[in-house]
């Protein structure tokens, strides 16, 4: 599959982060669908199957990203999902998916701290899509 055949759904309520993520992905050649809320993302996935999804963790709800992961995996078990957040490790509050139990219900394929470089993001996407 070529990058230009791939559509990535990006949900983030930070308009700048959304703009940059979409900008960088499109620069790499992917198509994107950008939404600014959990509600919009839910509406999109009922009608459309992306090749990959990147969800921000905290949107209208503190756990919007988790909910979206769950709904995505239930509808499209084969679509990889990346969960992104700016919640920092310094505070001791981490959302990394470590234990088997967490993996079983969070079901994101990759957890990323925001502030990731565009080329790193591209690599993660390629890895998940086995490009």
């Amino acid at each position, binding site marked *: 599959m070529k990058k230009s055949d791939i559509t990535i759904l990006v949900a983030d*309520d*930070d*308009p*700048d*982060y959304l*703009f*940059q993520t979409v*900008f*960088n992905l499109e*620069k790499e050649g992917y198509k994107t669908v950008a939404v*600014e*809320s959990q509600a919009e993302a839910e509406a999109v996935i009922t009608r459309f199957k992306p090749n990959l999804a990147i969800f921000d963790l*905290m*949107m*209208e709800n503190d756990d919007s990203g988790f909910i979206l992961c769950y709904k995505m995996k239930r509808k499209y078990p084969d679509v990889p999902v990346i969960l992104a*957040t*700016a*919640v*920092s490790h*310094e*505070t*001791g*509050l981490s959302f990394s998916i470590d234990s088997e139990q967490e993996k079983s219900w969070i079901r994101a394929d990759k957890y990323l701290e*925001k*502030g990731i*470089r*565009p080329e790193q993001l591209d690599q993660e996407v390629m890895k998940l899509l086995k490009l």
Partner: protein
Amino acid sequence: MAVLKVLVIDDEPGIRSGVSRILNNFHVTYPFMDEDYTFEVTEAGTGEEGIEILERDMPDILLLDNKLPGIQGVEVLEYIRKRNYDIVVAMITSYASLDVAIRATRDGAIDFIPKPFTPQELKSSIENITKQQYLKRITHRMKQEGKKIRYQFLSVLSHELKAPLNALEGYLRMMQGKQAGELIDDYATPIERSLQRIQGMRNLIMDLLDFTKIRLERKEEKIQEVNLAEVASAAMVTVQPYAIQMDININIDVRSDVTIMADPDDMEIIFNNLISNAVKYNKIGGKAEVTIDSSDNEAILIISDTGIGITKNDTENLFTEFVRIKNEKTRNISGSGLGLSIVKKVVELYHGTIKVDSTPDVGTVFTIRLPKKPVTIN
């Protein structure tokens, strides 16, 4: 109903069964406790057996005889102290000689029950111990909760501070790599957005400073007579540029030219936050109104708007730090999520009250009542 586990270590079977019999039908209750305490007694004839049970059951209270066939009571006490176990120990002994008493207290025993004892003596001892246990648990729980709140505050704060940095970094990288073109004009949006994010971050830092300031000790010399209408007018001037952008008409209605004894900075915090909210969360062409009134004892400040309003559900957390109502209408409004929590803290500092009434799509009314008489501020 809470159960406290009691272990009695004594080589005399009569004492052990006596304790069991008395405590199994006993409960402790106090007006300040939210539940009754009852007791579940386990018995051990030797110190060794006692330690085994102790390791398995982790009792709350230990009644300990000093004179035992194998290891002595004080040695059991030492065992508990070395491991920092949270067990209240009372010695039951007929050999309550001074040196044993001193050693036992030094090693953590808190009470003595002289043998032989009457049921009443045992009960009053246990009652004391229970009260202590209860208070210890409550303080422990309160500390835990305090920690949790601070912890949440820090994690949200770091999230709020990092988000704009991430945005700026992303835009700068974009420019560094000339990813949107060769000309500076190709980056007009990223530059504009960066400036806005910097402004947002500056506001957050200013709010944080206010937030820390109101937590610090007051300096009494800053308290002076403050004319509330004057402070309100000054705040309106500050907000004016933004109000013009949104075509919002701010009106002030001074029904009573009331003055109160306060730190003028504090009053400024109240008006600045509420008036700027009345503009920020308004509709284009809307109205904001500041009313200053007074009753016999109180100054009454009413700040109302014709804005987007708040649902009943959302008003519950409105004054909590970093809670921002997130919905379609507030999406493009920037804020630190600290403003109203700061206002509430200031109002409470002056022993005042703040109330909110709101109807979605109609508007919001904040009513603040502050005592006119000088109050001790702490």
